[in-house]
């Protein structure tokens, strides 16, 4: 536990130093969401209906930005060897990395999402659903993302393969995440948030093990 906390603290510290990807993902998220009304026009009703979907898609894309470096930096500078020889175990490394990635990317995105929703004219009644869906869904994005990052770790230009591998897997998260927001806009009950919660729970529970298996595979290559 102490070792996992140490790795988590180290990654958070690196992310806040120069060269960290935390601010980059946030800026990208804001830029994509702001750009959208220029593309589809400024009809407030239309924007309100697409707001949830746009924010969710932009959040997923923003998550992809630094993901290829999640394990790669440690792999290249020899730290992954040292972590593998620590009491953490590969599952511990994976879990600490997933939590760190969510704290660096998913949580800040969730916090600024309401501001961007304001730009898209999202009705006030849908804000709780937006926040809740992001809070539940973004950890699943980090978890699945870490598995994909570990799989593509030793592949040259793996950063290009990563989105291709990951985006189809994230489709259910986007469908139910955006669906939960749209249900509030339309004032209907569709149960999307429960599906999202179920997907997220399963993903978060399984991903550390998948990630660990992929790390073992790549390291002993």
């Amino acid at each position, binding site marked *: 536990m102490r*070792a996992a906390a140490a790795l988590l603290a*180290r990654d958070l510290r690196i992310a806040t130093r120069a*060269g960290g990807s935390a601010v980059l993902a946030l800026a990208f998220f804001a830029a994509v969401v702001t750009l959208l009304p220029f593309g589809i026009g400024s009809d407030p009703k239309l924007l309100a209906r697409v707001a949830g979907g746009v924010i969710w898609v932009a959040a997923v894309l923003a998550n992809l930005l630094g993901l290829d470096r999640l394990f790669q930096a440690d792999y290249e*500078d*020899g730290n992954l060897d040292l972590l593998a*020889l620590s009491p953490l175990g590969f599952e511990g490394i994976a879990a600490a990395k997933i939590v760190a990635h969510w704290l660096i990317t998913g949580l800040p995105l969730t916090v600024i999402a309401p501001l961007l929703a304001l730009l898209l004219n999202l009705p006030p009644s849908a804000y709780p659903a937006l926040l809740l869906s992001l809070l539940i869904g973004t950890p699943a994005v980090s978890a699945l993302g870490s598995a994909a990052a570990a799989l593509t770790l030793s592949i040259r230009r793996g950063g290009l393969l990563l989105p291709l591998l990951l985006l189809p897997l994230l489709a259910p998260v986007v469908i139910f995440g955006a669906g939960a927001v749209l249900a509030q806009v339309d004032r209907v009950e569709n149960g999307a948030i429960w599906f999202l919660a179920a997907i997220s729970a399963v993903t978060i529970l399984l991903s550390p093990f998948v990630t660990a298996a992929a790390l073992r595979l790549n390291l*002993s290559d």
Partner: protein
Amino acid sequence: MRGGRPVFRDVNFRVGRGEALVVEGPNGSGKTSLLRLVAGLLAPAAGAISFSGIADREERGNSVGWLGHHDGAKPQLSPREMLLFFAQLCGGARESIPSLLQLVGLSRAADLPCQYLSAGQKRRLALARLKLCGRPLWLLDEPLAALDAQGKSLLLDLLREHLAAGSIALIATHELLGLQTQRLQLT
């Protein structure tokens, strides 16, 4: 196995407490692969490796002090922060960090991000990490690379101290260490 081809076969050795083994051989003969096998970072295609009765690969890793080609210095963090991290990671004593930094000659650079350190300074930081973690089995891959004369004698001092405490070291190197060691020649 490397790229589907066997790197070496029929390698046998036994190292007792307080002993060191120097692994020698030309480039590409598998010195690094052998050390990674012993560390448990690689799985052998055939055969078995055990350290004080621990045969499980990942369990054995907890006894290993690893010094590889890369020193594992994070460019954004300072030597002091790196050592604090490793102290927490492997259960070393935080109180010893200032004296360790002094020992390896990094006191003045202790709070400088590692991206400004030279290759030799990064290697000295890795030596401090080795001593900090205090693992009983040191695996050193070309430990003298990038070190100056003073750094070399520092490494030898640390090695002597490590062996005198009854611990073990496996060293892959091209250079003479001036230590009484066993030798393993890879071809």
